[in-house]
């Protein structure tokens, strides 16, 4: 078996004096499709930022592809939340997707034909090739979300990190995005952060519940309806048991 893609060991993160992650241990293997569920403020986005090297833990270690975070050299594709984007920014979908090629370019080096080809390919995968020249302000929430997924794909990553990709889209688009992820998981390791507990169980291989501490649910590749129902309720449980013992626990619900 190959080396794990992500290894977090007893990770503690404090932001502005508040403990956001406490004693978190997590291992993600190649080919995993991991969903991290949890309430707002539970540290889901922070976990992604630690993996990306944007936030430094106060204790514990993180290894991504066997290296310190921030040194993955374009092997990670990150899909941030759409909320913080300025939709009035004069930029086309294609230009956004081209940014996915940044990690493969040197300073001052311009995007070339190869970059444009990869960007267009990524737009085709996400079903947006016809909107390549459209300004992002004229895209719907779901289309913008898929543009951001295309941007991540354009960099030809092995690991995809998605932050609430279905938070601001209508139910139909939600299905489209999950279908897209179902296709992508064949070639990518995926970590998805969401509080969309409704449909997630059908798509992912593992589920972790995060509220400062992490509860891992290992179930193999198939999920029975009974365990799914168990999972639907789970995030509510997490909210209620906010001040649990404070150490990482591994549950096996299978």
């Amino acid at each position: 078996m190959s080396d794990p893609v992500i290894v977090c060991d007893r990770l503690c993160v404090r932001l502005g004096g508040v403990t956001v992650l406490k004693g978190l241990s997590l291992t993600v293997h190649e080919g995993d499709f991991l969903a991290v569920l949890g309430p707002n403020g539970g540290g889901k986005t922070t976990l992604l930022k630690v993996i990306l090297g944007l936030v430094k833990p106060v204790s514990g270690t993180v290894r991504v592809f066997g290296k310190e975070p921030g040194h993955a050299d374009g092997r990670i594709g990150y899909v941030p939340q759409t909320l913080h984007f300025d939709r009035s920014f004069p930029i086309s979908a294609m230009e956004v997707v081209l940014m996915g090629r940044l990690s493969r370019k040197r300073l001052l080096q311009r995007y070339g034909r190869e970059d444009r080809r990869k960007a267009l390919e990524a737009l085709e995968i996400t079903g947006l090739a016809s909107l390549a020249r459209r300004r992002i302000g004229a895209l719907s929430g779901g289309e913008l979300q898929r543009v951001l997924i295309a941007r991540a794909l354009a960099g030809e990553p092995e690991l995809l990190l998605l932050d609430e990709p279905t938070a601001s889209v209508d139910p139909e688009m939600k299905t489209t995005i999950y279908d897209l992820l179902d296709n992508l998981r064949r070639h990518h390791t995926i970590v998805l952060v969401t509080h969309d507990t409704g449909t997630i169980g059908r798509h992912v291989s593992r589920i972790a519940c995060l509220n400062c501490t992490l509860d891992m649910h290992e179930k193999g590749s198939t999920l029975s309806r009974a365990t799914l129902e168990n999972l639907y309720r789970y995030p509510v449980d997490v909210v209620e048991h906010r001040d649990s013992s404070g150490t990482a626990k591994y549950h096996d619900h299978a």
Partner: protein
Amino acid sequence: MSSSIATLPERQNITTMPDILHFEFIRNAFLAAILTSVACGIIGTYVVVRRIGFISGGIAHTAFGGIGLSYYLGLNPLVGIIPFSLIAAIGIGLLSRKARISEDTAIGAFWAAGMSAGVILIGLTPGYAPNLFSYLFGNILTVPTSDLQLILLLDLLVMVMVGLLSKEFLAISFDEEYAKISGLKTLALDLVMLCLIALTVVIMVRIVGIVMVIALLTIPAAVARSFSQSLYRMMAFSTLFSILFSIAGLWLSWIFDLASGATIIMVAALVFLVNALLGIHGNRQTQC
């Protein structure tokens, strides 16, 4: 307030463009307007899309310390502004991003400290400070050829830097976090951009003065944004608007004997207002 053109003879008979172009200072004024507009359109676009107008205002006002220093040392004020505005750019940039100081606090501190340094230095300079008003409020009609050369040089520098770093600047403007993840040195790029804003401030001081730099830096770009498909078109359009505002303002200030810098800003503000009002009725989707 009356501008220096009031003393010129036969002004009343000269109201059309070709006539006033006979004067060298008018030709210089037009050249200054065009050269300034290039830097202003390019850099103003970044200022508007990144929403850093207040930083630019801070840099401009800190530069007043440079004017004070120049008077004190007997130098060309434009030369004194360059180090002051660069220090302001790097200082505000580093303080707000590295130290745990909020950006508006850092800007406010530099803004006021720069102004006070200028006031003290001008007070220490014996005698009356000539042309002080033209640096505060601009006077496009008194731009000497030597300043034009400096403006041209800085213009070229701004264009070359933006040309070289266009990919990086677009990335940090649109999504700084993603740029950082992609391995860009975002802090360094940020500081370079702030320094380019500082140099653009130097270029613009002659035209609209320190106090009104923010307006000419942001209004043409803000008007251009609503119908620009890309950042580069927005730069082109805002350069055009800036030229239009400057020349219209210059011409109106000549006819009605008004202060040129302030007239340019009034023209720009009027167009901005009309554009904003039309935007309320017109298509909202590009404005969001």
